């Protein structure tokens, strides 16, 4: 606590504007005396260290940040650091309980992860490939779908509210429910997809979606079905922000609808679309639940995305070192889009 108070003290020290923004005015009435006695410039500076500290404590309650900061440090930053440390240790089922004393392994975990197939039969390189394909392909496919869907409900029509609500539903269903449903929809032979494909004569109706090479595509289709409304929502939000005059102006100029979309709407939406695609890529990259619930355990190689690889290494084979190495690789890959995302979120400068 003491050190925190000192921190508060220093924080105020370094921001000269702070006193201006501090909300306390000298109140009238009986309280006035005690307030002014400790107020800066009116004798506060000559007060004891304790009274100055307690005034700061009361006027600028930065201590209120302590719980959130503690939460961030204890359950986010420290674990992230531990993951990096774990990835350099030889932690397996024998050394797990004494993991702090596990032998230092250098980069051997990373080398192992890249060169030796895991018990599931895939290497880290394969998992990186599947994760990249999965997240990029999803983003590339859902972007036009989401945009078109948003354009289609831009026009006012009877029942538009209901259509908009239905558009949202796939996105609001919890991923584990989507995955369970996909399991039944993609059942071999008797599932909805095989029945339709078989009925139309496109396949023989025995695709084996949930095992073998088709597993990836079953997962991909499910992800597309479940997440396109994200792009739809972002586009809709972007459309609402376009001033009406811009439409009018382009109409007066005699632009066709196609020209208007290409030269007026898309440029206006580009900011929000870039953000949406970035976020979409980040989150599809880390999707664990779909692959975990949709397939049997362990999932087929086609569904062996990075989080699945880390999970099975850690909790089925207790190769914590390897799993940590995979987690670190995932984190490093995601740092690039995460950094762009943080940079693109401009914070409002001023205070209230």
């Amino acid at each position, binding site marked *: 606590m003491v050190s925190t108070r000192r921190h508060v003290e220093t924080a105020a020290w*370094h921001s000269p*504007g702070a006193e201006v923004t501090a*909300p306390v005015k000298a109140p009238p009435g009986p309280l006035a005396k005690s307030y002014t006695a400790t107020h800066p410039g009116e004798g506060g500076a000559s007060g004891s260290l304790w009274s100055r500290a307690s005034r700061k404590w009361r006027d*600028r309650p930065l201590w*209120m940040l302590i*719980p*959130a*900061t503690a*939460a*961030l440090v204890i*359950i*986010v930053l420290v*674990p*992230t650091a*531990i*993951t990096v440390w774990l990835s350099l240790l030889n932690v397996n089922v024998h050394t*797990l309980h004494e993991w*702090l004393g596990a032998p230092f392994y250098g980069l051997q975990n990373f080398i192992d992860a890249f060169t030796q197939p895991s018990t599931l039969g895939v290497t880290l390189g394969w998992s990186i490939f599947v994760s990249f394909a999965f997240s990029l392909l999803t983003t590339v496919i859902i972007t036009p779908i989401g945009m*078109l869907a948003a354009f*289609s409900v*831009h*026009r006012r029509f009877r029942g538009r509210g209901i*259509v908009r609500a*239905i558009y949202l*539903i796939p996105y*609001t269903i*919890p991923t*584990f*429910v989507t995955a*369970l449903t996909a399991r*039944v929809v993609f059942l071999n032979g008797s599932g*909805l997809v095989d029945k339709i494909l078989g009925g139309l004569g496109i396949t023989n109706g025995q695709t084996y979606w949930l095992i073998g090479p088709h597993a990836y595509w079953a997962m991909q289709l499910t992800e597309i079905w479940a997440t396109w409304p994200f792009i739809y*929502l*972002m586009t809709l*939000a972007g459309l609402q922000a376009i001033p009406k005059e811009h*439409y009018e102006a382009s109409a007066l100029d005699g632009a066709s*609808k196609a020209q208007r979309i290409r030269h007026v709407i898309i440029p206006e939406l580009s*900011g929000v679309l*870039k*953000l949406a695609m970035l*976020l979409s890529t*980040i*989150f599809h990259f*880390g999707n664990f639940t779909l692959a*975990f619930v949709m397939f*049997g*355990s362990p999932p087929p190689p086609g569904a062996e995305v*990075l989080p699945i690889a*880390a*999970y099975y290494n*850690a909790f089925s084979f207790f190769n*914590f070192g390897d*799993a940590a190495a995979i*987690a670190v690789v995932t*984190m490093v890959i*995601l740092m690039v889009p995460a950094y762009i995302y*943080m940079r693109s*979120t401009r914070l*409002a400068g001023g*205070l209230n």
Partner: protein
Amino acid sequence: MAQASAALGAAGPEAARGAGRRSWPPRPRKGSAVQSEAELLLPVWLSRLVVVLVLIAVLVPLGYMLLMSFTPNYDVAAGVVSFAVLTAQNYVSMWSTAPLAQGLVNTLIIAGTSAALSVAVALMAAYPLTRFAFRGRHGYLYTLIGVQTIPGTTLLLPLFAVFSWIQTTISVHMIGTYFPIILTYMTFGVPLSTWLLVAYMRTVPRDLDEAALVDGCSQLGALARVIFPVMLPAVVVAFLFAFLVGWNDVLFASVFTNQNTQTLAIALERFSANSQAGGLPVYGQLMSSAVVSAAPVVIIYLIFQRYLVHGLAAGSVTG
């Protein structure tokens, strides 16, 4: 889902800018009844076609799910799609086939506690973040965005290692109790709720807390007695989003809970894994429990649709 929440979070402090003071988010503005031709983005036939295709793509799997939830297990496995076999039996027997009721209670306890704690912590943090200039304030806000992109598996391993280490070192039972899982969900709940509340608190006029301070309230008192009631709508939304983190999670719950503390998601996941392992697969009951797990979330989202869209709209301003 997490994505929406994060994007909603990303809306953050910008959200308040365009918004009127007391109405956040603003109700959609009612334009003139007739939409000018200039505002149509697609030719009418094309937009109708898109609506029809999208509705089919969305509703067919949903309808299939509903239909199968009323179809006996055997018929689902055999691929029978028929209105003649429909029965509500799945919705009755699923409760005894899988520990769903227990899972539901656990989810309510775990997700509810972590959401309540997250919102309390976030409310306290949002106050200094919107009211005072201090060194590192921007850095703090950026950190809140950054941590939301850290993948779950990166946090799962060390948390597991630490909890099991505590367990063996000081012999306090951890894994399988509510504690680690609640703490873990706060990892996601705190940054998310803080963003939401910072955005809203900016719209709360400062005169309010100043008046409270003048009347002799402490800062914490002003927050609790004056600001909190005004912010109630945002607090409810922040609570719901933090709650859904726990409702939807599978990754952490599959490691940190046991037979007695497993959440609804895990009860269902194990149910489905076991039903595949042997005997007659209980697909019908699987679908009825899936419907029951999804319905509350879908309903919450549809009720709070306006907040969802607005949060994203505000995010887009940042572009």
